[in-house]
């Protein structure tokens, strides 16, 4: 459990950038979407989400904009910026290399 938490903590920025690259979302929606897409594996602790979003916004990777929902309630939607897209592309390549390397160790090709 601790290992899983550490894994999420270490990769929270990449996960958030990846989600927001597909669609602009607000905080509560991000938590739900992450849980749904990972089939319950990733459960972002609510209190850690907002500091992470603000950190990414301050770094210029995302930008928050207030928008009205259909029911008239305002929500702060986060959009990925051009800098965020560039960062995500680099991280995707790094992740892919990492996954390939791990797979080579876990499932060695039969000699």
């Amino acid at each position, binding site marked *: 459990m601790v290992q899983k938490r550490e894994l999420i903590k270490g990769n929270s920025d990449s996960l958030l950038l990846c989600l927001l690259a597909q669609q602009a979302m607000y*905080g509560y929606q991000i938590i739900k979407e992450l849980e749904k897409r990972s089939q319950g594996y990733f459960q972002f*602790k*609510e209190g*850690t989400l*907002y500091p992470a979003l603000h950190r990414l*916004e301050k770094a210029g990777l995302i930008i928050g904009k207030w928008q009205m929902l259909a029911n008239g*309630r305002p929500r*702060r939607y986060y959009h990925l910026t051009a800098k965020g897209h560039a960062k995500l592309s680099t991280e995707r390549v790094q992740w892919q290399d990492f996954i390939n390397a791990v797979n080579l160790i876990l499932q060695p090709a039969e000699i």
Partner: protein
Amino acid sequence: MTTALNHYLEIIRNNLRIDLAEEKNVISELETHIEDKLQELKECGLSEEEAEKTCLGLLGSAKTIARQIYEAHSQGSWEQAFLAAMPHLLFAALFALNWWHHIGWLSIILVMVIGASIYGWWHGKPAWVFPWLGYLLVPVAAFGLVLLYLPKEWSLLTIPFYFLFALWWLFCIVAQTAKRDWLFSSLMLLPAPIIIGWFLTLVPDAKITAQTMERVNHFAPWIALSFLILALTIAAFIRLRQRWLRIALLIISGLLTLTTVVYYVGGKLDVQTFAGLILVMWGLFLIPPLLERWLRKSRRIYKRHVFSSSHY
């Protein structure tokens, strides 16, 4: 929203200490998140009380959230660090290049101090403006010095009024700054004991004579060095994220600079003098948080008063 949730958001607000516009965004965002979560939990069959308890449990410590958001916002850019260090660098240059007796340079610096302070104050009070604001106290102090040169009767008559005005001015600036964050008040006041220390050394009888000029010339490189240390401290302060590191930096740097000034001027440093310097720095760091606490308490009492009068 219930009292417990409002109290939770109030703790976050009190510990955020970020730009007011950003603070509003953070609180509104958390408010909407709590509303969504409460609705979801109630739809799952939880009572209002249970939903509230679960929601607060999931969010975690209010102080931790506030601290993490503060750290996300606190670090300034290198440009901001340079801008914040600039007034100290200008004063360091004034003494290092022996420009301190040129009225032209002094006027230029005065105009820059006033201009930067006004600009920063009306543009969201960014962190870099506070060191400039501190130097707004220098013309007030210089005006007090001029009063000493009036005929004796006039001096006696005007000085009490001057003291009242100077204290009122100091209180206004510190109170306004403490509303944003008491740490900025300490940042602003940091050069005060060092400038006062140099002043008492150079002008012990409060009268500027030819001897004073000689003394300033003699100490000019050391005065420049103390301003340079202040500039480096401020630049590091702006770049640091963690609050406790910022506090430690201001205390250590302020105390070391002041101790060096006293040691260099006096040629020795006994325990009593050092204890006195610690007391001066302690006061510098104790008054702003106490003032902030008092201002917040007054604001809470005022809000409660307005709330109760609107209900009766």
